[in-house]
């Protein structure tokens, strides 16, 4: 530990001064990136810093208007399932305690409340004027009794602008087979999972003790959504689906290893009430640009699905596991990013023996509330190297996304628990 020096005392007023500057000019680029940009590869003009090392499985995160960062941990660590990170003058943050004795994924802040989810329930906490949780030990239980199986357990959450809460309930299966993930096992007709999972449920954001009975199945036929966000431009819910796995493993006569690694697309859907995206009956083939009948339901890789199912709004390479979606509304980044979407791809496992892919944050341009133009890799090298991406043994795995009050982009990593902050420092 370095010895105490009077120089640090001198530094305090200087830091306080720069803080005041930050507060009065929230877009002033004063946050210094790490010399190595936190190990990330970014477009020119951008920089990144490691805000904090939480050491937990950091799933989604939220940043309050005061700059306090709340991080939801997948598993409770030292008795805490939510960590509070207090911002420091240098743009980093220190872990300043935590609360919530449950693991989970969802973390969202809106209108003075912090919303959090376990794998069964959704809670909220009142925030005070400083962005602190008023009563960390007593959250309001908003929704309880959500279905959870041994896969796709996350209950991701987002709010619209009309006091509604949207909750993903992932399907506890790959493709609703009689025997899950078993070679040759047929799909169950009228998949019974869909009554309580495989979709997005809508609840009231400010009403206690809601259940399936008082909520609405807002959209169905979505296998598992981890990243979702409300698009403020066309006032609509957008979700990222984790597409089905194991076309080759379970149907080796119909799909090769290579096809299985490239099928199906990971899809973005623009969702309206009553929409059905078609899981488990279909998957989306990004080469043919068609909705294909799943092999569990009589498909063979050539037959198209029939029925009233929505098309994806955009499609991305297979199995990359989109875990975070954020519409960027800040002014720190150049104009092209405004109202576009950032997507955190957690990285694949279901491409073996082909090389794995993902482990990066993508930017999808939008125009008038719709995807417009080709997506691009925005922040890369979370894995640490091309070899670590290919093997799937990534150092870090991007999961959650949040926008800071100054327009910084925050990214959580649920492998080592690193919290990243991406800033734009060049002249626009």
């Amino acid at each position, binding site marked *: 530990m370095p010895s105490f020096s009077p120089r640090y005392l001198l530094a305090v007023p200087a830091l306080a001064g720069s803080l005041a500057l930050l507060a009065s000019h929230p877009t002033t680029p004063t946050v210094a990136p790490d010399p190595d940009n936190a190990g990330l590869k970014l477009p020119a003009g951008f920089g990144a810093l490691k805000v904090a090392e939480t050491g937990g499985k950091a799933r989604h995160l939220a940043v309050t208007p005061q700059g306090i960062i709340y991080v939801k941990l997948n598993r409770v660590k030292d008795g805490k399932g939510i960590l509070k990170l207090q911002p420091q003058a240098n743009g980093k943050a220190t872990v300043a305690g935590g609360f919530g004795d449950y693991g989970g994924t969802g973390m969202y802040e809106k209108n003075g409340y912090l919303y959090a989810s376990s794998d069964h329930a959704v809670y909220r906490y009142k925030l005070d004027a400083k962005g602190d949780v008023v009563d960390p030990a007593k959250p309001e239980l908003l929704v309880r009794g959500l279905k959870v199986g*041994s*896969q796709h*357990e996350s209950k991701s959450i987002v709010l619209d602008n009309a006091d509604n809460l949207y909750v993903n309930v992932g399907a506890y299966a790959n493709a609703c087979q009689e025997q899950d993930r078993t070679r040759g096992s047929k799909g169950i007709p009228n998949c019974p999972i869909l009554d309580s999972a495989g979709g997005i449920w809508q609840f009231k954001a400010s009403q206690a003790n809601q259940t399936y009975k008082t909520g609405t199945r807002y959209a169905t036929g979505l296998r598992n959504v981890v990243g979702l966000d409300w698009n403020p431009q066309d006032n609509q819910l957008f979700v990222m689906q984790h597409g089905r796995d194991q076309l080759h493993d379970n149907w080796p006569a119909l799909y090769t290893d290579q096809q299985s690694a490239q099928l199906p697309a990971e899809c973005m859907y623009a969702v309206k009430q009553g929409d059905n995206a078609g899981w488990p009956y279909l998957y989306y083939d990004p080469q043919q640009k068609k909705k294909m009948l799943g092999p569990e339901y009589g498909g063979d890789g050539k037959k198209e699905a029939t029925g009233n199912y929505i098309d994806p709004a955009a499609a991305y390479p297979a199995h990359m596991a989109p875990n975070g979606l954020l519409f960027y509304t800040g002014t720190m980044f150049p104009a092209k990013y405004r109202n576009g979407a950032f997507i955190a791809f957690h990285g694949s*496992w279901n491409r*073996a023996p082909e090389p794995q892919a993902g482990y990066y944050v993508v930017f999808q341009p939008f125009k008038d509330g719709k995807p417009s133009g080709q997506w691009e890799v925005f922040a890369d090298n979370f894995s640490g190297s091309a070899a670590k991406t290919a093997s799937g*043994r990534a150092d870090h795995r991007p999961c959650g996304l949040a926008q800071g009050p100054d327009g910084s982009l925050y990214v959580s990593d649920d492998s080592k628990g690193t919290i990243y902050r991406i800033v734009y420092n060049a002249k626009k």
Partner: protein
Amino acid sequence: MTSKHLVLALGLASGVFSLQAQQRLAPKAKAKPTDKADPALQAAMTRGAVVYKNVCITCHQADGGGVPNMNPPLIKTTYVLGDKARLAHIVLAGLAEPIEIDGDEYKQHMPAQAYLTDQQVADVLTYVRNSFGNKASAVQVAEVKAVRATLPK
């Protein structure tokens, strides 16, 4: 009797299920049956590698390291290096409970692979028990056959 009960019963009978499952075994200083000169073992390893690539590799990965939070690693765990009957039972009947290895939980169910022949199961388990840094005795066809005989028809 459900397959879950069978797995439990097997685990209890061998007396290692819950305790040793908590941590990986330290590698043994001497491993006897993996003599490079053993042509029967080498042949089983070659055949087992093919089964592994066709059946196991997606979930357990090319390096046997599994997938965090989902599919358990096959590297120096008691599941792999311990009781062979229990291991063969997992392949034939699947495993429908979360397991914990080195403090990490793995939740995804293992589907039953009963369509594999006794020879294929013996080969792939011999391969797994002697790959990824593992060294353990080969699994014989008769051992797989005995486990299959206990499965519900």
